[in-house]
C-alpha cells in the first residue's frame, strides 16, 4: 500500500511554454489503499500523469513522493495494465504473467530457485480472475476479455503496493467489463493495494473508486475531487440507485465544463 503525495507538478514536452505544457500544477494526495480514478477530456495528459507515477518520466517542476520518498526513476513497486492487453505471443499465458518476476531486479536473482512457488502464485491469481487452468494456453488462444484478465494478473504478480491502470477495460464489451469490475474490486479488497486508474467511463470510475478526480483540458490540472463513499463490496445494481446516478451526472457536468472551456482554444489552434 502506497501513499502518494504530489506537490506542484508541472510538465511540458520540449519546454514550458504554454503550448508545450501538458500538466500544469497538480497537487494531490492519495491515501494508503485508496482506489482513485482520474477522468477528463481526451488528450488532457492522463497518460502522461501515469508515466510520471510509474517513474518513466520526470517532471520539470514539483515532485511526487511515494511513501514519503521522492521518485527519481522506475521502481519495481508498481504494476501496470493498459487498454491494450499486450502479451508476448511466444509465451504461454502463465509465462507472460511471470515475466515481471523474471526481469524485476528485486526477484530476478531468485526466480530460478523459487519458480515453483511463483507458478503457484500465478495460478492462484488466474483462479481469482476466472481463468483457472488456462495458464498453458497461448495468448492468441484467449479472447479479448480473457487477455485483459491475464494482463491484470501480470500487473499484480509481484504484489505491487501500487497499481496503475490506464483505461484497462476500454476495449471490452459491456458485460465483460462489468464482470471485470467485480473481479478487480474483490482483488483490491483482499490485497488492499493503492490503485490509480485512468478511465473514460464515468460509471466505471464511480463504481470502483473511493475518489474520482476530474482533470481539465490540456494543460491538465485536477479540477474537482469527488468522494464516493458507498459501502464495499459494491454490487453492480448500485449503479441504478439515485445517489449513484447523481454522482455520475455530476462528473458528466464537470467534464462538459472542461470541454466547453477547451473548445474555443482548440478551435483557435486549428485555424492558426
Amino acid at each position: 500500500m502506497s501513499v502518494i503525495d504530489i506537490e506542484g507538478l508541472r510538465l511540458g514536452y520540449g519546454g514550458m511554454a504554454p503550448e508545450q505544457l501538458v500538466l500544469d500544477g497538480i497537487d494531490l494526495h492519495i491515501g494508503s489503499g485508496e482506489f482513485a480514478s482520474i477522468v477528463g477530456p481526451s488528450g488532457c495528459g492522463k497518460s502522461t500523469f501515469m508515466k510520471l507515477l510509474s517513474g518513466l518520466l520526470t517532471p520539470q517542476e514539483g515532485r511526487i513522493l511515494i511513501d514519503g520518498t521522492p521518485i527519481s526513476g522506475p521502481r519495481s513497486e508498481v504494476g501496470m495494465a493498459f487498454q491494450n492487453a499486450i502479451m508476448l505471443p511466444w509465451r504461454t499465458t502463465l509465462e507472460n504473467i511471470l515475466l515481471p518476476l523474471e526481469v524485476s531486479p528485486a526477484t530476478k536473482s531468485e526466480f530460478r530457485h523459487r519458480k515453483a512457488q511463483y507458478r503457484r502464485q500465478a495460478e492462484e491469481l488466474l483462479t481469482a480472475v476466472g481463468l483457472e487452468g488456462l495458464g498453458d494456453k497461448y495468448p492468441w488462444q484467449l479472447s479479448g476479455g480473457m487477455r485483459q484478465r491475464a494482463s491484470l494478473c501480470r500487473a499484480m504478480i509481484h504484489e505491487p503496493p501500487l497499481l496503475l491502470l490506464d483505461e484497462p477495460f476500454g476495449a471490452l464489451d459491456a458485460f465483460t467489463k462489468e464482470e471485470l469490475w467485480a473481479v478487480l474490486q474483490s482483488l483490491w479488497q483482499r490485497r488492499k493495494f493503492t490503485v490509480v486508474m485512468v478511465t473514460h467511463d464515468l460509471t466505471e470510475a464511480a463504481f470502483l473508486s473511493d475518489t474520482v478526480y476530474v482533470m481539465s483540458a490540456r494543460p491538465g490540472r485536477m479540477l474537482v475531487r469527488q468522494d464516493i463513499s458507498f459501502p464495499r463490496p459494491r454490487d453492480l445494481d448500485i449503479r441504478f440507485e439515485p445517489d449513484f446516478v447523481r454522482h455520475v451526472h455530476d462528473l458528466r457536468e464537470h467534464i462538459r465544463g472542461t470541454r466547453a472551456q477547451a473548445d474555443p482554444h482548440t478551435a483557435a489552434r486549428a485555424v492558426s
Partner: protein
Amino acid sequence: MTTNTASTPEVRTSRLRHWLGWFRREEAMSFWIIIGFFVVWEVACHLFSLPVYFLPPPSVIAQAAVEFQRALMINSIQTLWTTMAGFGFAVVFGLALGVAVGGSRRLYKGLYPLMVGFNSVPKVALVPILVLWFGIGSVPAIITAFLISFFPIVVNVATGLATTEPEMDDILRALGASKLDRLLKVGLPGAMPHFFGSLKVAITLAFVGSVVSETVAANSGLGHMMLMAQANFEVPLVFAGLLALAIEGVLMYALFVVIEKRMTGWAFRSQQAQQ
C-alpha cells in the same frame, strides 16, 4: 509361408487410388505446373524447330546433364559451399549489426545512410577489387555472397526490434528491467519472425552473389562452368548449369521455410487466430 498382403490386387488398386488422390490435391498444383512448364518448353522447341545452340529442349539438357554429371556435381558443390559460407557470415554479422542498429536510435540514424550507400553499389562492380585483394578463387565468391545477402538481414532484424510494442516496453521499464533483459526477453524473440523471414530472401541473394563472382573471376563453380560451356558452344550444358542453380536455390529456400515454421510457428498461429 506368410501371405504377402502388399501384392493382392485390391491393395494395389487402393494404393494407386491413394497416389492419384495426392496428384489432385492443392499441394500437387506446383508439381503439375513445373511439369507443364517443361512440356511447353519441349514442345515449343520442336514446333518452332529452334536450333539447339539457341534454346535446347529439356530432353537435350537432361542428356547433357547426364553426360557432364561429374562436372555438374563438382561445380554445384563448389557454388553451394561458397554461397553457404557467405550466407553464414551474413547471418552472423547481419544479426549482430541488426541488434546494434535496432537497439540504438543514435546508431540507426548514424549508420543508415552509409548502409544504404553500400547496398546501392552493384556487387558485380566490387568483384574486380576483391580479385585484386584476394586473387581468383573461392574468397571473392564468398565475400560477394556475404555482401549481397547481409543487408536484408540487418534491415529486418532492426525493423523487428523497432516494432516492439511501446506499452510492453513501458511495463518492463517501470519494473526496472535492464536493457539486456528487455532485449533478450522481448525484443529479440519478437524480431525472430522478421529475422527468419529475411533468411529466405538472403539465401537466394547469396546465390546471385556467388554466381556473379564466379562468372567474372573464378576457376570453378557453376558460374565459371557455364561461362566455359558457353565459350565452347556447349549450350545444353549452360542450361544444365542454370537448372542446377535453380534446384539449389529452391532447395535452400524450402529449407529456410521449414526452419522459419519451426522456430517462429507462434507468429503464424497468432496471425491466424486474429483473422
